[in-house]
């Protein structure tokens, strides 16, 4: 469905130096720097897949989505989406896709969302019967019946986001790019959005790429994740396997009936936290069983659970690893250039 080969997107930015004098000089002699937002990534996505794009701020996720939706021309590489080359922005292509951006809105500010729906219906040439059916379904699933006739400016962020999503789906796109669709929403609204997105994907077999900094979104929606860091692809596979690779240790959470000396916990594993009658131990996968039996035997345990490390932690560890590797490589390179 989606195929990306060696995609690069470099932004040429005009460097505006500080200070008036330097600024004036730069008017005559403009200096440019190149920002390598995406620097050679490749992947394939099958129809109906749900894929999460992960990466720290500035990794190149949004840039990639914009290239995939035809808003930006790639600097290099080949991209096809359902047989179309996005940058040509053919009508047939644009009718199949949609990009939803949590930070920007397409709804007309002073008018009710229903007006935007109506406009999109005309733009996408949606037949009347299909339009009514889609709209009824969206209204029911997202519970936006009373909202769509209120002016957009009177809606709360979460209400607006639900209507945004509805406006984006009027033409039933088969490929959906979601760039931080849940940003700024409360936990229950995030859950609503996730359920809805999943349902849309399952019902219409739509292919879906999602970026989010909320790991719950990714864990709930995306069996497969692609990690991008500094414009490079650093992982492509299942989320579970990623966690296994980065942080194979499990967490054993012990609830204790009485205070226990730290010295008694230490031999069981690495103590992550220990306060107010709860101790969290980090233990290698294969040692989990042994640790549990020793804890039950030797400590006043009232409750015990085994968990994975929080995804946020796994991700920040992965990004830190990548960063360390990059710095080491840069150091090597500079050493080589000195000796050469």
């Amino acid at each position, binding site marked *: 469905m989606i195929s990306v080969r060696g995609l690069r997107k470099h932004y040429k930015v005009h460097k505006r130096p500080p200070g008036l004098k330097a600024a004036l000089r730069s008017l005559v002699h403009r200096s440019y720097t190149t920002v390598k937002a995406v620097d050679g990534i490749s992947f394939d996505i099958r129809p109906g897949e749900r894929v999460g794009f992960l990466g720290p701020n500035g990794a190149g996720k949004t840039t990639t989505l914009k290239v995939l939706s035809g808003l930006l021309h790639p600097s290099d590489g080949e991209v096809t989406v359902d047989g179309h080359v996005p940058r040509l922005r053919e009508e047939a292509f644009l009718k199949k*896709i949609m990009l939803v951006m949590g*930070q*920007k809105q397409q709804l*007309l500010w002073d008018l009710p969302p229903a007006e935007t729906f109506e406009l999109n219906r*005309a733009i996408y040439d949606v037949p009347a019967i299909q339009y009514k059916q889609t709209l009824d379904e969206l209204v029911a699933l997202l519970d936006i019946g009373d909202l769509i006739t209120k002016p957009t400016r009177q809606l709360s962020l979460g209400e607006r986001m639900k209507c945004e999503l509805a406006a984006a789906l009027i033409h039933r796109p088969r490929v959906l790019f979601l760039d931080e669709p849940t940003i700024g929403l409360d936990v229950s609204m995030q859950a609503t959005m996730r359920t809805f997105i999943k349902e849309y994907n399952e019902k219409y077999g739509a292919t879906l790429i999602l970026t989010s900094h909320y790991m719950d979104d990714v864990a709930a929606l995306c069996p497969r994740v692609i990690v991008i860091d500094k414009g490079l692809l650093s992982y492509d596979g299942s989320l579970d396997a990623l966690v296994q690779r980065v942080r194979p240790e499990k967490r054993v959470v012990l609830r204790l009936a009485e205070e226990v000396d730290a010295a008694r916990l230490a031999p069981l594993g690495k103590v992550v936290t220990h306060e107010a009658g709860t101790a969290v131990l980090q233990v290698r996968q294969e040692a989990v069983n042994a640790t549990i039996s020793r804890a039950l035997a030797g400590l006043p345990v009232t409750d015990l659970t085994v968990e994975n490390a929080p995804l946020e932690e796994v991700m920040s560890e992965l990004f830190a690893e990548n960063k360390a590797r990059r710095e080491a490589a840069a150091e090597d390179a500079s050493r080589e250039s000195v000796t050469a």
Partner: protein
Amino acid sequence: MVRRYLRLLGIQLKASGLLAVQYRADFFTEGLTSLFWTFTALAPLFVVYGERPVVEGWSFGEALLVVGWFTLLQGILEGAINPSLTGVVEHIRKGTLDFVLLKPADAQFLVSTQRFLPWRAFNVLTGLGLFVYAFSRLGRWPSVPGLLSSVLLLGTSTLLLYSLWILTVSAAFYVVRVDNLTYLFTSIFDFARWPSSVFKGVAKGALTLVFTYVIPLALMTTFPAEAMLGRLPLHALAGAVVGAVVFAWLARRVWLHSIGHYTSASS
């Protein structure tokens, strides 16, 4: 194809209409402002014609026609062209032009029809009023061919004005802040309230050339006024039509080129 775009236009007009109804008190404020500005704009005309009956071949009544055309075009500019195109600048600044470009319809069409301010178009009525007044001063009425060709020129003038705006907005893709450009544009447009031959007396050579060909302002108001008076040569009429079409084509090319360069605002 055409039907689809007509339907789109209809929907955009409806949306603007809904908004206009929300702000219907504006009808009166806009009306009063329009009348006020028209009278202040007429003041210099009274001053100039207080001294002599004819300026550069234009009598008072005839010059009034030019002011009438100026006022009418200003109504079109502020009611139908400005609102949409200042919206584009906003889109570029906030990065929401992305949504326009994601749509399977012509981007120039979508942005050019996104907003109309009907109350701002009050000047159109004022302009028509000025025509009636001017002809009553002249003591005659325009001929039918004269009227028809002036209606044709209304089309070319609007097209010219629109194309000039598209060119200005295209600049926004490169400099982002075009407030100054739009200000410059409105200030220059102000010159169009005078018959173009007046400038021949004031500014010789280069300036006349600029006003006639580079920024075809003079043509926008003077030609239709001359057409109404029945003294516009046929070749000038043809020239205006060809010129407007060429200009629109040029503006379209520049727009497409600028869109190609667009890299949306970060994030």
